[in-house]
């Protein structure tokens, strides 16, 4: 059953409610008494539901994808870490000034093999959301990420990066602690970090704050995740001085996984279960795990020199221009 349904999911939740209604014991008893074949009707409705769902979720608009990517039931980094990895041991602190809980990371095992994982971490309940600043990292968070990335390099373990943020923190403290410098430093250091890096955009890939933890050898992206230079709301305010036209801006920004793949920013779009990752986190996690394992297996065969040359070439070709 669908919790927190969006407008575009109304036909789905109506069908789901109908089916649930028909499945109630009283309804079943009633039908039996009247000799009606309720199961057949439910079957019909269920195949209709499947049809509608396929139709709705395969033709989500960019704005609808944005809503999906921000869905509060959508699995977050630590959900996937728990589902995909074993033995995760969270590390903390930037060894400079603080411990930013908008970023989590540490060593873990993927099918027995040690890796390092780092991700941006949103949260559901209000207190945890505040503690994690809604997944928007300050300089301390980006610097923690870089510290852990360097441990991966030192110990020659592959690095997995989960991206899920509306963007970097943009408050006074962020500016005081040099959030721009921290983002830039990550972009620079990840580009030459001497270990394989696989990035997965799992939810919101918001601007520089997302990119600061999204430089790697392979960039994967969930089917309904978004990745954008600016939020649709921000874009709409700048373009039309009307943040309510976020839907139009989302169209213009081409922020879907499918567009990101066409633009060469993303290598692989990982399909989500029908209805989105939050409908089946375990299945989603399995898909991610398979894609990550496959990428790492390919990358493990490369020498560091080849790896870094290809990583550089991958970044270097991004963009559109005429010579």
């Amino acid at each position, binding site marked *: 059953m669908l919790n927190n349904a969006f407008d575009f999911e109304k036909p789905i939740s109506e069908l789901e409610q109908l089916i649930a209604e028909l499945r109630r014991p009283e309804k079943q008893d009633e039908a039996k008494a009247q000799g009606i074949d309720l199961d057949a009707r439910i079957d019909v409705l269920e195949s209709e539901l499947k049809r509608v769902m396929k139709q709705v979720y395969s033709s989500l608009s960019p704005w609808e994808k944005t809503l999906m990517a921000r869905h509060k039931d959508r699995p977050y980094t630590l959900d996937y870490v728990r589902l995909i990895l074993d033995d995760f041991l969270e590390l903390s602190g930037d060894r400079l000034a603080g411990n930013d809980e908008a970023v989590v990371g540490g060593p873990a095992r993927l099918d027995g093999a040690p890796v390092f994982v780092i991700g941006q971490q949103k949260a559901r309940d209000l207190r945890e959301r505040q503690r994690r600043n809604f997944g928007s990292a300050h300089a301390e968070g980006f610097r923690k990420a870089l510290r852990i990335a360097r441990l991966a390099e030192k110990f020659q373990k592959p690095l997995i990066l989960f991206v899920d943020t509306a963007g970097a923190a943009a408050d006074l403290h962020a*500016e005081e602690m040099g959030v721009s410098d921290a983002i*830039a430093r990550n972009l620079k250091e990840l580009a*030459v970090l001497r270990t394989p890096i696989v990035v997965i955009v799992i939810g919101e890939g918001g601007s*520089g704050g997302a990119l600061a933890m999204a*430089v790697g050898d392979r960039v994967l992206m969930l089917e309904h995740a978004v990745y954008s230079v600016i939020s649709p709301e921000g874009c709409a305010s700048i373009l039309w001085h009307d943040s309510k036209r976020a839907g139009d801006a989302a169209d*213009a920004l081409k922020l879907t996984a499918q567009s990101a793949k066409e633009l060469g920013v993303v290598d692989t779009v990982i399909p989500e279960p029908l209805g989105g990752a939050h409908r089946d986190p375990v299945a989603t996690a399995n898909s991610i795990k398979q894609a990550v394992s496959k990428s790492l297996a390919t990358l493990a065969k490369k020498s560091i020199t080849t790896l870094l040359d290809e990583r550089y070439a991958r970044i270097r070709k*991004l*963009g559109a*221009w005429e010579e």
Partner: protein
Amino acid sequence: MNRGSWFGRRARPSRTASSVPEGIATKCASCGEILFARDFERNQKVCHKCQHHHRLSARERLAMTVDEETFVEIDGHLRSTDPLQFPEYLDKRKRAEEKTGLWEAVLTGTAAIEGIPVVIGVADFGFMGGSMGSVVGERVARAMEMGAAEGMPVVMFTASGGARMHEGLLALMQMAKTSAAAARLDLARIPYIVVLTDPTTGGVFASYASLGDIALAEPGAIIGFAGRRVGNQDVGTKLPDNFQTSEFQFEHGMIDRIVPRKEMRSVLAQLLGLLIQAVPNAE
């Protein structure tokens, strides 16, 4: 890298060398002082009264920074496309081209500063707010690659509102591209000097503008991540008066020196001279 055919080409002169036509006065953008064009130009567009450093076009900046007749543009042939078919992008770019006489928001090339050969990049805020799209990112990256390949120091004058929205994700990726190029430049041990000018914000400040070995800035320039407007929206936070200026960033350790415009050229030359000289302790 193949840049043979255009390498020696001279860039065409700027169509609008100055916003103050000869013989006419303008008002200081900061204190309102009446500034007579000839004095204003002679004073490098710095207000003689309040020392406000007015914005310069890329051409103006080059003229007062590099040795005469030494600038040779590279990668001037690169042209933006409209990969997202983004609303109004082509129109806006056309207007920017007409206004600035440039094809893009940054000029890159080789030049000499007091005789020292450098690769130089100069942003032009007049061209769509100095925003970084594919061509800006590509030019900056190629300039750095040239510095690394030729062993020439790289100097970047920044001025930008950030990544260019109209190129979407591809604009965002220029942050990664310029930073990756800066990483390779660093590994090649080539000096990389950034000069932050008004304004340098967003994705440019959060990428190649923050990666200089040495960071200089003009006084009073707006320099910050999110722009003051965004910062101001924080609930209950009192912002310091100098929030997101050169001076604020200096206090917070992000800038080496705040250098008045009239000293910039000689400081750059001094710095370059100190960084490039012969190696005392080779492997």
